[in-house]
């Protein structure tokens, strides 16, 4: 079983270069967090991670792919994806070597 995040937190997993950049495989971040704020939140913690890692990575919530909303897009509150307490988010950069 995976480690459960503390109360009012979600787990975020960092794969491949995301793991090298943050020097960790997993950590807990405060929830709830709107998905469109995720990259800003990570950029605050790890300066430069957006351009080096996040912009070309794919993101999953609870093992399922999610589209990252555009920053500028109008937000319809009913459709806003929000990362909830206890969720598991993953940052997956492409790996190219073989």
């Amino acid at each position, binding site marked *: 079983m995976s480690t459960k995040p503390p109360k009012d937190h979600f787990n975020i997993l960092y794969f491949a270069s995301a793991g090298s950049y943050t020097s960790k495989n997993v950590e807990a971040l405060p929830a709830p967090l709107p998905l469109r704020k995720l990259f800003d939140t990570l950029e605050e913690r790890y300066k430069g991670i957006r351009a080096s*890692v996040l912009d070309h990575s794919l993101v999953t919530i609870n093992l399922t*792919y999610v589209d990252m909303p555009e920053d500028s897009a109008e937000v319809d509150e009913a459709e806003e994806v929000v990362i909830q307490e206890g969720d598991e988010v993953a940052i*997956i950069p492409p790996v190219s*070597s073989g």
Partner: protein
Amino acid sequence: MGEGTRAGAPTNGTRNGHSRRLDDDEFDRYSRQMVVPGMGKEGQLRLINGRVLIIGAGGLGCPAAQYIAGAGVGTIGIVDGDVVEASNLHRQVGHATSRIGMLKVDSLITHLRGLNHLPTYIAHPFPLTPQNAADIIAGYDLVLDCTDNPATRYLISDVCVLLCKPLVSAASVQKSGQLIVLNCPPSPQGLVDGGPYAPCYRCCFRKPPPPSSLVSCGEAGIMGPVVGMMGVAQAGEAIKILASALHLPPTEPSANQNQNLHQPTLLIYTYDLDAAPGPYTFRALKMSSRKPSCPSCGAGSTLSLEGIRAGDPNYEQFCAVNTPRCVLPLSERVTPAEFHAARERGELPRHVVLDTREREHFSFGSIEGAVNVPFGRLLMKAAAVQRDGGEVRGVLPEGVLTQTAGEGGGEGVEQIFVVCRRGLDSQEAVEKLKELGLEEGGRRRIVDIKGGMKAWKEEVDPGFPYI
């Protein structure tokens, strides 16, 4: 479940070839896999009639090819322009010490013939290019992407979309591996109505990583079992797809649909050298189906084989392959030979050498007196200082700027020489140190050693253990 009722499977095994008796040779050889529920004689015949193209005869391609050949896939093509090197052998298990220097395709086919002489092996002893990709891929039913760079990955995916070929894609570097089945079953480019349809590589990974973040197996290293596991898994998927005809459009509307092929799983393997397998070692993540906005397979796609041949899209440019990173002016660079000569003559009284390679590289040796400051950690410390403030000197190990190498002793370092593996990171490190103000108003010189330890070995110390 009977053969004929299996989802998407043909009723008599004839959808990708004719049904026939198996030869005695085939019967013996494939008996152990044919008795596996779901395989049977018809599954085996579909493998025998199947044609698989393996692009890349390296760490993924070798293990993948072994199992595909062993399973009796009838036609196996292999694309690779490289030759076997000793540093390949810890992971590229289809080659051999005795075949160092041989073309990888020839070496691998030699090995595969020893394993199973029945398949037809086709050598394509050159790299895949936008000019030759469509002609090669057109001759096969299914493609395995076992390559090592993003430009070729996008090229392969685009051509597979246009030629309606399923693609089993894997990748691996250092301690991670990824595997995904794409474009399976294939559907025509641009088709969105009546979906969902299976995605292509661009649906999943829209943008290539910036070149500065790209690491090759040569630089970052690779553990043999990690890439081997992904290659074997590729073979497993390829055999499954061919034996069960999952790559063909379903005969009944409900058939392949219930297998969720249009939302493939991305399998991720994370290998920790210093920890037992844990909850995150294997992760299976559900991807999205074909994206209507995908520039390759989506509704408005203008991609064409003619275009690709003529250089549109430009894969090298898309992946910025040849963009040189940060070239410093000559005044801030010195060749290893110049540095060495100046130091021998005692002209560098108060200097320090920073070696920005990873700890593992540094552990094999460096320039005498060099201090190891791994590039990644340097950038992170620099970012922290720039964000939170704090002592600029803190980005370097304690005492580095007060210690002195060479003659003179005294108060502090007047020159910093930065060296890395091949001379790219070191230039960025020089810029970063200057940006932080470590030149101290021109009182200190910060210089790049051109070409890194590779050039040091070539110009100064031929015996240096360069990796």
